């Protein structure tokens, strides 16, 4: 709910300028390296309103091709989490509502479905801050992810082993209460729990939050393997632009509830403005913060 205040206070002028041709183009699957693949998820021009008054997303469009890793970047309060929750239909519990636009998952309109129906169809969210069930053991946590499945105990058991093979650490801690495990283990547990639903698309919200850089790297490495080996598509919301752009194939940058820039990950990495505002680099190398007067309004983020 902390998004409420920010949305209301956001300046009327978009802070990030629109940059040339790259932006004028509509996001299209052809830009992604995995050409000729189907579109897993298409979000078209959605608006989200909290509490009937606070406009948080002001027309966000994005596309996630099947088999890809797409990242959603932006500062605190830019609307990343809201976008993910709009997709997974978890907004309702926070008194949020998609008032305009459409969301399609494998060609089907999904924004009226309940979250569990969406999970059954293969779209699951790993929420920000892990949100493991503290009083359940790690293994019980993983098993809750299989709630919507109807393909029998053996298949679920096999997937449990699959999750343990990606996260050996979880196997060691399978009997301990999730509430007592470390932050990294909890993040693994949350991702593993989502995998137990046999998803086609995982919406991953800030996996790097509160983790040591080495662990962040480890988590993204596993996401990458899951993407390659298990053919799971990922939409990752991140503040850690550097890591996210290394693992993702395509990226969108959100600011104040709008997509201000999008492109293939390499293009974004090379973009001067992304370098300056999101990666902390510039053409002349690392800059002193004192010199960037022309971007006063961005100071907050630097």
């Amino acid at each position, binding site marked *: 709910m902390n998004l409420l205040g920010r949305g209301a206070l956001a300046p009327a002028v978009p802070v990030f300028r629109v940059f040339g041709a790259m932006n004028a183009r509509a996001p299209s699957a052809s830009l992604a390296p995995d050409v000729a693949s189907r579109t897993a998820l298409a979000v078209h021009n959605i608006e989200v309103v909290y509490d009937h008054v606070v406009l948080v997303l002001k027309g966000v469009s994005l596309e996630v091709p099947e088999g890809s890793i797409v990242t959603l970047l932006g500062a605190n309060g830019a609307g990343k989490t809201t976008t993910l929750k709009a997709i*997974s239909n*978890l907004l*309702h*519990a*926070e*008194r949020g509502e998609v008032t305009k636009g459409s969301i399609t998952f494998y060609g089907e309109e999904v924004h009226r479905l*309940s*979250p*569990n129906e*969406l*999970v*059954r169809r293969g779209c*699951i*969210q*790993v*929420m920000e801050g892990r*949100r*493991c*069930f*503290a*009083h*359940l053991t790690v293994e*019980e*946590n993983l*098993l*809750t*992810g299989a*709630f*919507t499945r109807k393909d029998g105990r053996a298949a679920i058991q096999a997937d449990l082993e699959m999750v343990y093979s990606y996260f050996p650490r979880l196997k060691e801690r399978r009997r301990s*209460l999730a*509430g*007592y495990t470390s932050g990294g283990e909890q993040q693994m547990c949350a991702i593993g*729990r*989502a995998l137990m*639903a046999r998803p086609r698309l995982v919406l991953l919200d800030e996996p790097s939050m509160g983790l040591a850089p080495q662990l962040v790297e480890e988590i993204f490495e596993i996401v990458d393997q899951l993407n390659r080996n298990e053919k799971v598509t990922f939409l990752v919301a991140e503040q850690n632009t550097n890591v996210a752009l290394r693992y993702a194939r395509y990226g969108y940058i959100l600011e104040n509830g709008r997509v201000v820039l999008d492109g293939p990950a390499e293009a974004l990495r090379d973009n001067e403005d992304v370098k300056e505002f999101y990666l902390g680099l510039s053409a002349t190398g690392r800059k002193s913060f004192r010199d960037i007067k022309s971007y006063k309004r961005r100071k907050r983020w630097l």
Partner: protein
Amino acid sequence: MAELGPVLEVFLGGLMSGVLYALVALGFVLIFKASGVFNFAQGAMVLFAALSLVRLSEWLPFGVAVLLTIAIMIALAWAVERLVLRPLVGQHGLILFMATIGVTFFLDGFGQTIWGSNVYQLDLGIPASPWFLFENLFPGGILVSPIDVFAAVIAGTLVVALSIFFHSTKIGRALRAVADDHQAAQSVGIPLNQIWLIVWSTAGIVALVAGMAWGTKLGVQFSLSLIALKALPVLILGGLTSIPGAIIGGLIIGAGEKLAEFYIGPLIGGGIEYWFAYVLALAVLLVRPQGLFGEKIIERV
């Protein structure tokens, strides 16, 4: 030192009434465990279930009346879920608590409007005359009420069944997950509405069992609704989230208040049975806020 016979009799009587408190407390625990809502309406549900049963059994065979009452309690659970919980999803616990207070008054009034407000006799066919145990050991034996024994057996069965349900079934696991974190449970595809319906229905059936036991003892009447207040110290003692805790808390409170009355009562003029439980609960709160068996408050540091 008093004679052992009377002490044992008081102690057993206390344990038995403790089981009856526990039956009510069990309903609270179920709902709190699975939805984080402190359901103040549990007492009203006991009254409503007992009233429905007693009035239906007037013109239906008893078994049919029980089944019909179970159906009514499930319908009630559905209505509560639809009309109260669903619109309030994501609200603060206190707001949900207030809503259940509203449900309490509604059920008290509505139940008596449709079923009448007299005192009704509920006869389960259990002999009313007490049993005398160990007559060869103690002079006069120990007096035990068959109704209490019946309640104890039912309560024991319920606890075992519910514990197994919570800890080794898929639905039970989902219930505990919902109790831990609604939103995360929703995010992994656990349908909150169905879960709440299951929990409130189960609590309704537990209320029916409690209503049967208490109704046989006291007659079915408005005061059944107030036994919810007696369940509060049991909850605090046993822990809000523990099913075995509800039973053990009930036993401790039941036996404790009777023994306190027996030993300390005469010294200070009697009548402490009515408030002893609350003092005990207060003491427990001070040293162990989660109760004897409640879930540990997990804090990572």
